């Protein structure tokens, strides 16, 4: 599970920074194959074990699109999987129903994961892109008391 959060093929290039080829080398009909090899059992393999092709969005990063980012706090999370279900870009990484963290190559900072997080305080919060995760955790809010 070591390479799950920072897989070497994931986000290996900026989107749009692919090698540009001439008209005689582009694919017929703008067809894009998702995987380099036989993908018959791909549904049974985790993302980090799939041989994604060059033009798969998995191998591209769009981190530069983001100005604020969600930070994940393991100490509060109850592994309810709400964020994993709702994330529109499959950027919450979960294995065996345990949240591991965020795919910062594909997360666009929309904040849906924070909205749907049910814990108190929330286990995911939005911070400025430049702030380190450790600094973000250090300023995490305390539990809010219910109003009477």
């Amino acid at each position, binding site marked *: 599970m070591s390479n799950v959060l920072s897989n070497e093929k994931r986000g290996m290039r900026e989107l749009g920074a692919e090698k540009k080829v*001439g008209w005689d080398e582009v694919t017929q*009909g703008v*067809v894009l194959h998702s*995987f380099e090899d036989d993908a018959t059992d791909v549904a049974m393999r985790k993302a980090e074990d799939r041989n994604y092709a060059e033009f798969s969005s998995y191998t591209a990063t769009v981190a530069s699109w983001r100005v604020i980012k969600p930070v994940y706090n393991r100490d509060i999370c109850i592994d309810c999987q709400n964020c994993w279900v709702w994330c529109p870009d499959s950027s919450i990484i979960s294995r065996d129903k345990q949240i591991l963290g965020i795919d910062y190559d594909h997360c666009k900072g929309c904040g849906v994961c924070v909205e749907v997080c049910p814990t108190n305080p929330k286990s995911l919060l939005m911070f400025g892109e430049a702030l380190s995760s450790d600094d973000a955790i250090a300023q995490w809010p305390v539990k809010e008391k219910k109003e009477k």
Partner: protein
Amino acid sequence: MAEKIDLQEIEVWDGNYAAAQAMRQAQIDVVAAYPITPSTPIVEGYASFMADGYIDGEFVMVESEHAAMSGCVAASAAGGRVATATSSQGFALMVEVLYQASGMRLPIVLNVANRALAAPLNVRGDHSDMYLGRDSGWVQIDAFNAQEVYDMNLCAFRVGEHQDIRLPVMVHQDGFVTSHTAQNVRPLSDDDAYNFIGKYKPVDDLLDFSRPVTHGAQTEEDWHFEHKARQHKALMDARPVIESVFAEFEKVSGRKYKRVESYMTEDAEVIIVALGTTVESARVAAKQLRDEEGIKAGVVGPRVIRPFPFDAIRDALEHCKAIGAMDRSCPGGALGMLFNEVSAAVYATSDRPLVTNYIYGLGGRDLAIVDIKTIFRELKANADTGKITTPIQQFVGLRGPKLGFFETRGGK
């Protein structure tokens, strides 16, 4: 397993039924269709074959022509042999998806029974819909009669599905005059026809789960140009492929086709260039004028409209003196398509024949043999005087004062 039909050596079919029979013999996987006059009997006939057990494929009844072509695009991307039919307004509604089909390199076959475009609403035959499709990136083949509708359908699958081409193909026929006129048609047997077309070989099919693929990807300024260039190259490269398919078809049928059909052009001084049934009428007129008045008249009919046979048209026309380019579509503020493209082709010759433009037959208006003879005589006057003696563009067969545009300057 579908039943076969024992066909007679000579059947009496109209163009629509000829198309339906060819589609049946092609063993198509999916037909998605929405009916419209005058092409309706094509898909109606096909559906009857299916109901009677002669077809194994799927027939999808959709809610519009846009959906019909969309269904064809999806089924073709999924990996099936696909065809449909339409006309006029239905064709116009398909246009957006026609460009998707060619850009996605999907070898769909579309039968078009040519019909005028509204307004005014009109169900009769002219070439407005055929012209509307001419920049859509499809191969466009024109049949002049029911036999050719049948033959060109069989060839269309071969051309479009050729691994170097992989482009959609339209087979055009004149609405009513071809589509609804019963003629003698000599079909191939079911086995011979299918063997000629061959088993469909899918390319990058969505149903190949071992190789997941994205069809219809978006490209912006960084990739779009290259993809369109490759698509255009494939369309231009279809020219020799069409010729080789026609040569193979001659072996199985005895019928010879060319990208440009020339009639008595060897020694012709004056030549009419036309499409559809007008080619046959013009041949009759040319023969009569040669016999009766000694006018060396000839006829050129582009069998293939796209890729435009610039080379073959030039070869067919370069030694004549005057050309009448006949456009059966209201040219919308320009000279007609055939005039412009024929002129461009003969401009690249040393003799540069005189070219004039005749707009005719809109909304199904008949063009009689006598009308065509009048055109030939005008071309003869141009040839004899060495300059254009009429307006460059004229409307013929029109009631009211003569309507024409543009005069010649100097000799040419």
